[in-house]
């Protein structure tokens, strides 16, 4: 069964796009950037889990000296680089989306 709330939201979006077709311009690239930005939020918990499972797990079995710090550093360095890219992507996506929305609002007001 169609969820009326979801259908309503989609319909609302469609109405917006129908009223102001310019909303569609560059939306694909903005979505890609937004997804890249959102993935930045996932990367940290994943890195923490990987660091504990593969970098620190041996300490659980009593061998504290055998913690693999270099693996933890490598994982965190990779995550840091990814985080920088994701942040730039997120910033660009929000900015593009905001500018497009304001332009659409301008078009609607003038119409």
């Amino acid at each position, binding site marked *: 069964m169609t969820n009326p709330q979801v259908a309503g939201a989609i319909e609302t979006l469609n109405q917006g796009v129908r009223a102001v077709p310019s909303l569609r311009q560059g939306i694909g690239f903005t979505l890609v950037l937004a997804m890249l930005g959102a993935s930045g939020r996932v990367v940290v918990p994943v890195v923490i889990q990987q660091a504990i499972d593969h970098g620190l797990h041996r300490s659980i079995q009593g061998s504290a000296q055998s913690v693999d710090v270099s693996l933890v550093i490598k994982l965190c360095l990779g995550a840091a680089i990814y985080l920088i890219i994701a942040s730039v992507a997120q910033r660009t996506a929000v900015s593009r989306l905001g500018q497009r929305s*304001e332009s659409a609002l301008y078009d609607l007001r003038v119409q």
Partner: protein
Amino acid sequence: MHGHPTSSGRFRRATTLIRSLVAYHPGLFAISMAGAAVFAVCTVGSSWLLRWIIDDVIIPRFDNDSFSVSQTLIAVGLLMGLSLIRACGVIIRRSFAGRAQWRTAQSLTDEVVDVIVQQPPQWHRQQSTGDLLTRAGVDVEASVAVMAPLPYASSVILMMAIAAVGLISSDTALGLAATAVFPILIGLNVLYQRRVDKWFDIAQGELGVLSAAVHESFEGVTVVKAFGAENRETERLAIIASRVQSARIAAIRLRSLFEAALDFVPNMTNICLVVGGAFRVRSGELSVGELASFIYMFTLLVFPLRLIGYALSEMPRSQAGFDRIQNLRLSPVINDPRSLFTHDDDVLALHSASIGYDVNNILFENVSASFAPQSITAIVGYTGCGKSTFVQSLAGITPILSGSISGPSRLTSFVFQEPFLFGTSVRDNVCMGREFSDDDLRWALEIAEADFVHELPQGVDTIIGERGVGLSGGQRQRIALARAIIQRPKILILDDTTSALDPNTEVKVLRSIKSRLPNSTVIAVASRPSLIAMSDQIMFFDQGVIYGPATHIELLVQNVAYRGLMQAYESPADPEEKL
């Protein structure tokens, strides 16, 4: 628009805003804050519980291969209990924060509307309707936007305090590194607000201007269409809309940078903590359980830290909206000119009054005149001589600049040159919310020669639409006249009210008023001989001088300008001559 404040000024403004908003419904807000506190304590408690579960339940399972059923059950029970209490805290926080926000919006709107209603007509003439609507709507909404996230933001501060103690006591070095993120985020907020303030101020101000322009454009739609000025209006609105757009885009650019930084800083700190924690675990100064608890506690804070940033990012917009509302609320209520009238007797009289728009634009000085009860006085003069301003001063719509007015304490009814009809039934338009019988209504409509309303589809209950769309100018004037007549006023002032009626209907209306409202004193701006002929006395206005009250014959004999005007009424200029 105000100047942009310093950091301390900004902080003071923010606390004033929050204090002012919370003061409307402190009870609801306090309950929401209590819910937020429960949430905060449970959140921090869950990280301590996690440490206990890892170190005392899970690790012994690996180290000793022992499994304690009772401890596992206690752990599960504690986790579930804590989660349940935390969920209750969230529900209380959210529902009461929402209620506090919308009830505050309602209270603010009521206050704005009260201020608008209290002000006399002269104040309203200086305001733009669209701008007032923006203040009562968009600005109120913007003002309270910061309220809903406030309890959550407060709970985050509580969590930060508890967590900071917990983090530092777990591991001083790592704890200090983790808590360093808090001042960084506060610094980011201050920087963001300092940069974005002016754009939100401009955007809110321009929204008011746009709203006023749109309202004006809709009001004058017939003029715009008649003169084919649609493109000109579109261009005018486009210019204002582009100013709104530019200001908002500038704010969005800053906000996108701020939001990205809000995500980046805590996440990067978290990564650094993992690296630092690995070294601490390797040196044996921290157990894996302690590190996991540490990271978990910080991770729990990351999302709220972001949200507190979002909440604070609403502050400039709320501040801009609230400032605009405050400007309106704190503007002094102008004395209603009618409250300055004295009510010594039943005779309406002017005593050494100066009448005009302001002290630099005085039309008539030192005017003394009285209007005998039950008389009809015609106000006569050339176009633009100040007739309307004079009668509006008599009605207390425009204040007199000096002198005084005395008159009966009973109601004065005024019928404007431009009749305004509300988008409701004829009955509502005439009765204006007061209780009148059907007989009274019929009586008033008869005097105003507005019997035509009985032929409308639903008679007096027909909805006639905003500004009486569908009715002719004369019909609208007659309904507006019935509105004044039904009050049985002691003083009835007509500002060229019958100008849209044909001469026969005008005479009928005036005769009916004279015969069926015998106790009313009528003062009427007259531009037709028929009204002048029926008047008991005439006041003639010419070049800043008021002649009379006198009779028509007296003025014809004594005043050349009056005689000229009467001749012009009787034999208007040859149309070809005019061309």
